[in-house]
């Protein structure tokens, strides 16, 4: 069971030791690369093990740090959803680490890059695994601070430093908001553990749970009544927390940092930021809306409904806004960044719907988007690396010289706009089904924005493939980068072809378990009574 607790600890341990190691090996780039690959590789193995465990087990897995049961200490509570996203995260981080080496061949500071990179991975995994709302705050901060620093990696370029500054400032506001929300949650419910919070919220309806462990102190903890008016407190806390998550996921009107921050970073980092880091906001939102506040009744339900409506509306605006902005971009990476805003809009729309179908669609789309968006940034990165410019015009005609990269770029764009048989098509289909159940207009938003996005992508693709080269440059396809991209492209295709199976085998059980707050609470309680008896 240690693998649950160790998964985020492995990368952070590697990050702790990297500055020292790099001094010892005198900054040898190859050794640093090997070190980083070991770190991310071990994490991948660990999260794969975690994935297997989570899918083999009926209940969510619980790991008690320091042997303290919830709510006394921090627990990691891993359900299928967390394990699935964690696996995708670790796999992408490993692949991108391979890619990074060639991409950064002209830059100094590889050891700093990888220290931050491993820290970022640790933060992302911690966000997914934790079962404690305050620990979630800490892990979001780990993720964010590494992301801020990585955005500023090209420290001699004014735009990236300014973008990093903006990102940091907005991010800090967001996380502080979330911290206040946590203070209110603790004030009202007397706990910051997700399962325990869910229990307190469902207390009237949760008589099914045997709140008795035979141990007096724990019983007192579990039975303690909320001290404040929980409706008001939940409303304020959820509003603040949602604001924070909207910032993290770059939903309009909190999106403005993203189109500057994501392009300014090195392309592999752009891939991680767009593919994985923004998911933090979505995941946290899912945790709150679907696990903690699922199936609430009475006035609480009213609060949650209002919140869902706001989330849906903002999501729809983001989707349209992102799509329109895509069409007028000259900078390839900026275009892809706006596409991220669009997809985050889809995800929030689906999350806001609140049905099991919506959650399934959201989870599936989250994974597909992570893979496809990472692929798109990486494929574009190969061209940018070759030319040294992000302007679309300068990339003209390169396509024919780099067949693998172009092939992958094609798959990525086709996939992202939703052309069958690639992966995003199926998640968009699921999204469409979920949205049309709620409201026809929402489904229309999905279709229209996809169509606009298709137009924007095709323009880029046309230029890269058929455009006249500005000047002749000798380009050779960098193999290590191209192979990573090819692997991801094939993954896109494979997920697309196997979509029904994947939906059935992995996504549906994950969504089902996430919504089932009773199991979520039970896992904690059972472990508590087992540990104490």
């Amino acid at each position, binding site marked *: 069971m240690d693998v649950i*607790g160790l998964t985020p*600890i492995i990368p952070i341990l590697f990050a702790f030791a990297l500055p*020292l190691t790099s001094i010892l090996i005198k900054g040898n780039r190859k050794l640093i690369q090997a070190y980083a690959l070991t770190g991310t590789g071990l994490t991948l193995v660990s999260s794969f093990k975690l994935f297997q465990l989570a899918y083999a087990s009926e209940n969510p897995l619980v790991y008690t740090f320091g042997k*303290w049961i919830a709510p006394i200490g921090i627990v990691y509570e891993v359900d299928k959803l967390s394990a699935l996203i964690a696996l995708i995260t670790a796999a992408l981080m490993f692949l991108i680490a391979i890619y990074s080496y060639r991409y950064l061949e002209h830059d100094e500071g590889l050891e700093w890059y990888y220290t931050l990179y491993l820290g970022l991975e*640790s933060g992302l995994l911690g966000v997914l695994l934790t079962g404690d709302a305050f*620990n979630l705050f800490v892990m979001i901060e780990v993720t964010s*601070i590494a992301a801020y620093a990585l955005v500023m990696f090209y*420290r001699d370029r004014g735009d990236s430093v300014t973008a990093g500054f903006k990102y940091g400032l907005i991010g800090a506001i967001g996380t502080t908001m979330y911290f206040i929300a946590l203070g209110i949650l603790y004030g009202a419910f*007397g706990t910051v553990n997700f399962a325990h919070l869910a229990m307190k919220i469902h207390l009237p309806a949760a008589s099914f749970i045997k709140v008795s462990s035979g141990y007096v102190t724990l019983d007192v903890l579990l039975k*303690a009544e909320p001290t404040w008016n929980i409706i008001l407190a939940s409303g304020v806390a959820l509003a603040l927390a949602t604001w924070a998550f909207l910032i993290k996921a770059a939903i309009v009107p909190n999106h403005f940092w993203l189109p500057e921050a994501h392009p300014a970073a090195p392309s592999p980092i752009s891939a991680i930021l767009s593919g994985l880091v923004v998911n933090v906001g979505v995941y946290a939102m899912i945790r709150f809306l679907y696990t903690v506040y699922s199936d609430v009744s009475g006035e609480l339900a009213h609060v949650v409904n209002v919140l869902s409506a706001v989330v849906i509306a903002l999501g729809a605006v983001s989707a349209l806004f992102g799509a329109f902005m895509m069409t007028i971009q000259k900078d390839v990476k900026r275009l892809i960044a706006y596409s991220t805003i669009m997809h985050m809009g889809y995800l929030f729309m689906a999350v806001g719907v609140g049905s099991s179908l919506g959650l399934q669609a959201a989870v599936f789309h989250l994974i597909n988007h992570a893979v496809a968006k990472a692929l798109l940034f990486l494929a574009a990165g190969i061209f940018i690396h070759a030319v040294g410019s992000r302007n679309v015009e300068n990339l003209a005609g390169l396509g024919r010289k780099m067949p693998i990269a172009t092939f992958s770029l094609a798959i990525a764009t086709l996939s992202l706009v939703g052309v069958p048989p690639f992966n995003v098509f199926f998640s968009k289909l699921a999204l469409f089904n979920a949205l049309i159940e709620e409201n026809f207009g929402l489904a229309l938003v999905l279709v229209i924005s996809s169509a606009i996005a298709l137009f924007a992508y095709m323009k880029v693709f046309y230029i890269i493939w058929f455009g006249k080269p500005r000047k002749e440059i000798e380009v050779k396809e960098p193999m290590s980068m191209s192979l990573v991209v090819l692997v991801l492209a094939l993954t896109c295709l494979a997920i697309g072809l196997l979509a029904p199976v994947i939906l059935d085998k992995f996504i549906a059980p994950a969504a089902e378990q996430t919504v089932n707050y009773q199991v979520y609470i039970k896992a904690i309680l059972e472990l508590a009574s087992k540990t104490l008896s």
Partner: protein
Amino acid sequence: MKKLIPITIIILIIFGLAYVMSGKIEPQENVRALGKFYLENSYFGDYSAKSPEVVTAILWDYRGVDTLFETSVFFLAIIGSLTLFRLNKKQEKEAKERIEKVEELTLVIKTVTKVIVAMILAVSASIALHGHLTPGGGFQGGSALAVAPLLIIAAYSKYALEKQGLDKTRALILRSIGLIGIALIALLPLTKGGFIMQNQPIFPWLGGSLIFYNFFEYLAVGAGFTAVFLLLAIPEKVFKKILGVGE
């Protein structure tokens, strides 16, 4: 005068709202169940961290993972700053050379600084090593420790500090050692069949593992701040030259 009006309005609103609110809220007189658990169990009780300082017990034992990752946030912030201000080997050498005569402060300040530095080291160590008994702890002690190099940089110069062997690289090594120490203490219980960051009964004496955490945190934070101060003390001219930005 222009600022006075909004301030008056704000104050009036606050007092008005407070008047309305004060009838509705009841002042909080009890601790919550969880807080009470910590108060009762931190030293006595079956579920104890063996520390009379309840906040430190929560920080490094009950909710130890938070603190572990909080430390890594600080670590990543420092690494991020180093990334922003990174220098290659040649540039680092350049930064270590004095480009012009540095004005040092007067003799009195320099002499007093020497004595005070010794006292700061003792005081900060006391804060860190008594973190499990009295308020304070690794972070607070480390912050106090970092005042010593700061004073030296102010009274002498950063070059004086580097000449005595405390440069950015060394500070970073110290920081790494501190962090690895923390991580190892956290992982040690695994070898005895315990859980990550477990304290009792694997470290059975007073304060248990808290002392070690505090000590390593003290080292790490002190060294981390020192690295930041050293970076900030590099003259602006050197950086502008490295970045290729004109005056």
